[in-house]
């Protein structure tokens, strides 16, 4: 039978199938962080059971960590307590722990790929919905709840019904100023936040083929925002090139053996998907969101749609615009903004800092803007310094913070105040996501940079050098 990429990876990890029930799925790599793991460890304690394969779980602290003065003790007692619990639980069970201050510390979905923990054909889970990021390598990766974190610790398995399959093709080549983030926001705006619920997505077509690993990670990261369990891209030369030589990547004979498996990881010609959609790359422009879910996005030059023209309940749509204090038919260009956040597991990688720097270079931060530039990991910090991006940032009047999730979910002190507007490269514009009452405009690093230097929503193409076009 002809199989999809997803089928191949899933089927090779099924330990046991329950009739009319879920599959028992073996998990190759498990990532944990401080917020969704303490109760899982408590469960193990209650049941008096050990971690079955501690070497397959990796812990990093990220959600709750400060992004300045990381060398000092964490001030908030609740956060400090949660971080301590992660450290103690990891030590007690022999799990490798990359805590605050550790040179490998960073956002869980940034460090996993950086150290080669993420590999093609693997099953990867983490108590965080953006685990879908790792699908960029041709892995089945998805977010799980704390009960499932406990299952994986206890048995290295979870029980899941096999999702349906969807292939999203984007063909052609991208316009100037259009980044992987825009591609993802475009797809979500077309499919809605529930359009892929119940599905696992494979991204295919020219655009993803030609995309860097960083870009693929951004796209797969956002799969969850259209409701999908995850998204994946078949591994190719770009993938193998990226993973080669990383700390946890196999070497020698193990590499060859892995390659034999990895070479099989593509959807067979003629394999059937439960749903297939195709988009034309040339239709995509730089995107921005105007509402309170990631599906409420549009080309930055367009007007906010009228309530009568949108799918779904008019009252919900109006409530959303009211929260944002925007009006139907408004144009976004020129709207003043207060904060800019560059970071998160969506856009906190080196390529995102390069893009940001390409716009701010030789310009100055706008006086009305507070900017938080938060790299995804220490490795990203090192690259920023090495490539001279730090100088560009500082010359333009910006400062670089220390790695962590930061304003993506605002669990630490990086909170956008009520009523303020933030152009944010993260993944969620839900009410209060970046702080109670905060108003989030999701966009690419280029759009964020353009806003940071002009103090208002600006089409980045206006600030791009002609030779940078494309």
């Amino acid at each position, binding site marked *: 039978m002809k199989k999809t990429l997803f089928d191949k990876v899933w089927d090779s990890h099924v330990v046991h199938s329950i009739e009319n029930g879920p599959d028992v799925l073996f998990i*190759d790599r498990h990532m944990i962080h401080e917020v969704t793991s303490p109760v899982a460890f408590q469960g193990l304690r209650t049941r008096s059971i050990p971690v079955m394969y501690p070497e397959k779980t990796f812990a990093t602290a990220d*959600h709750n960590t400060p992004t300045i003065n990381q060398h000092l003790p964490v001030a908030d007692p609740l956060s400090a307590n949660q971080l301590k619990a992660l450290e103690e639980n990891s030590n007690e069970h022999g799990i490798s722990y990359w805590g605050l201050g550790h040179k490998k510390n960073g956002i869980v979905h940034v460090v996993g790929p950086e150290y080669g923990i993420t590999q093609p054909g693997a099953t990867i889970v983490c108590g965080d919905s953006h685990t879908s990021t790792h699908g960029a390598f041709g892995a089945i990766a998805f977010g799980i709840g704390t009960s499932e974190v406990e299952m994986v610790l206890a048995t290295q398995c979870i029980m899941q019904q096999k999702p349906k399959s969807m292939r999203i093709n984007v063909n052609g080549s991208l316009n100037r100023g259009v980044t992987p983030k825009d591609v993802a926001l475009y797809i979500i705006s077309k499919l809605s936040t*529930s359009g892929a619920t119940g599905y696992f997505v494979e991204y295919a077509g020219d655009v993803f083929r030609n995309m860097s690993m960083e870009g693929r990670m951004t796209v797969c990261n956002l799969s969850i925002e259209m409701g999908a369990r995850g998204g994946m891209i078949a591994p190719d030369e770009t993938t193998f090139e990226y993973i080669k030589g990383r700390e946890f990547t196999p070497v020698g004979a193990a590499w060859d053996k892995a390659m034999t498996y990895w070479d099989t990881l593509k959807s067979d010609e003629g394999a059937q998907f439960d749903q297939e959609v195709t988009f034309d790359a040339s239709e995509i422009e730089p995107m921005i969101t105007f509402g309170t879910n990631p599906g409420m996005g549009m080309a930055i030059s367009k007007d906010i749609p009228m309530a009568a023209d949108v799918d779904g309940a008019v009252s919900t749509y109006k409530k959303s615009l009211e929260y944002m204090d925007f009006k139907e038919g408004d144009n976004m260009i020129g709207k003043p903004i207060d904060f800019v956040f560059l970071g998160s597991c969506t856009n906190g990688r080196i390529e995102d800092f390069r893009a940001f720097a390409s716009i701010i270079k030789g310009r100055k931060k706008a006086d009305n803007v507070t900017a938080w530039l938060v790299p995804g990991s220490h490795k990203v910090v090192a690259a920023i310094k090495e490539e001279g991006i730090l100088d560009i940032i500082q010359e333009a009047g910006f400062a670089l913070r220390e790695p962590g999730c930061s304003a993506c979910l605002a669990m630490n002190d990086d909170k956008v105040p009520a009523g303020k507007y933030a152009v944010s490269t993260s993944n969620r514009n839900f009410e209060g996501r970046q702080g109670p009452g905060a108003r989030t405009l999701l966009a690419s690093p280029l759009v964020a940079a353009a806003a940071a230097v002009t103090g208002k929503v600006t089409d980045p193409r206006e600030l791009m050098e002609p030779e940078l076009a494309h």
Partner: protein
Amino acid sequence: MLSKKVIIMAYEKFEVLKSTGVPLPIENVDTDQIIPARFLKATEREGFGDNLFRDWRYHPDDTPKKDFVLNNPIYGGKILVGGKNFGSGSSREHAAWAVYDYGFRCVVSSFFADIFKNNCLNIGVLPVQVSPEFLHKIFTAIEADPKTEIVVDLPEQTITLTATGEKENFDINDYKKQNMLNGFDDIDYLLNIKEDIREFAKNAPL
């Protein structure tokens, strides 16, 4: 089929629930609304009910927002009825814990986000997916009479509006149904097949 040797009751059994419902006719309710991130700092599972829908329920100075349904004494009960695409966004199980801790045992909607639905099933909250038409009927019935009784019958897989007798079937897979009826969870099951898992691990692809 494998035998179950070790059985721990993970949560209360769920059979037939008769209750009034609390209506929340908003679409795309995300888990950041159900429990905002700043309340996720606990290392225990209890106590999240106090902050369920925190920012819709309270003003910044902690006084209750009068027009929010949980602050309206005429509504109450163990069934939360939400609009389409309920529970989207973050995978935080804390959202399901908050729903449970507040006192709900069942959430009804015309569509659920995947992870939220799984999380509910894993902790003993029954997600009941009904047709958009039936959801509309429930909202209308509660609006007309907040004391109207809703019956969720898990063995029969039906949801009924007692006053009119209108009824709809809902889906749940057999395995999860048995777990809910008996108060078992997946870990009980997995622990019983640990040897199979060990065998599998020896030849795992990576």
